[in-house]
């Protein structure tokens, strides 16, 4: 009986592989197989299992989409706001935190960032 269940589920996984490829969502195959045993053990409902499988695909897509957008943006620096040296800029700390919440983007407001250029800083250190 157990053997039959096993062959049935492997048959279903084969079909999943085909369907996932047709959907161009290859991670579904991997997540479906990996989460199936866990779902059975944890007694997930069908809905919970399906949501968990699709969630992996969506998370992966979002992550790779973010990577693509980061590459396309051509940033001058890879640093994120969390890596900002707050102690070095106490005067603008609150302003930056407010900007990081992204309100300026929805309001289509501009930001003017002023300060000495890196070149000016470097040359001002020269003897």
């Amino acid at each position, binding site marked *: 009986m157990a053997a039959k269940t096993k062959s049935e589920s492997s048959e279903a996984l084969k079909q999943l592989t085909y369907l996932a490829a047709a959907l161009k969502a290859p991670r579904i195959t991997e997540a479906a197989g990996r989460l199936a045993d866990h779902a059975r053990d944890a007694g997930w409902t069908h809905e919970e299992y399906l949501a968990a499988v699709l969630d992996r695909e969506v998370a992966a897509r*979002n992550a790779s*989409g*973010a990577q693509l*957008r*980061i590459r*396309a*943006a*051509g*940033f*001058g*620096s*890879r*640093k*994120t*706001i969390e*890596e*900002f*040296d707050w102690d*070095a*800029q106490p*005067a*603008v700390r609150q*302003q*930056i935190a407010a*900007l*990081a919440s*992204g309100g*300026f*983007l929805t*309001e*289509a*407001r*501009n*930001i*003017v*960032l*002023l*300060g*000495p*250029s*890196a*070149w*000016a*800083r470097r*040359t*001002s*250190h020269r003897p």
Partner: protein
Amino acid sequence: MGKTHLASALGHTAIRRRLIVAFYRADKLFTRLRGARLDNTFEAEVRRITGVDLLIVDDFALRPLDATQTNDFYEIVVERHRRASTIWVSNREPAEWLAMTTDSLLAQSAVDRLTAGAHTLIIEGPSHRQRDRNNRVAVDSTTGVNDAH
């Protein structure tokens, strides 16, 4: 972390909001537009540059803008005005940008638009933390450009 880093970091927060961001150094941006004029793809290039959700222009007005660049500056500002955010990174205040352009009337019009409702942040360099508004001009003079005012 300097102002370029901060601009990039703000760009990363926009990425997380699933927005399309473009970061350009001002000189490279103008070079792109100049090239696009030569092969008649200017309109498409302007759309590509100004069509993003967040545009970041780094090192703006570091060097004087010629007539074409002044026009392109105006074009970019008008295209994005009240439609999408732009982060302008500069070692000079917007009022000083006018003297860096060939057409201060056109530039004034652009500056008025881009500073309307804008957030302005002054990022201190590591060696100039105590600097105030008055001696920023003195710092700018280290770049070898004399201020007209």
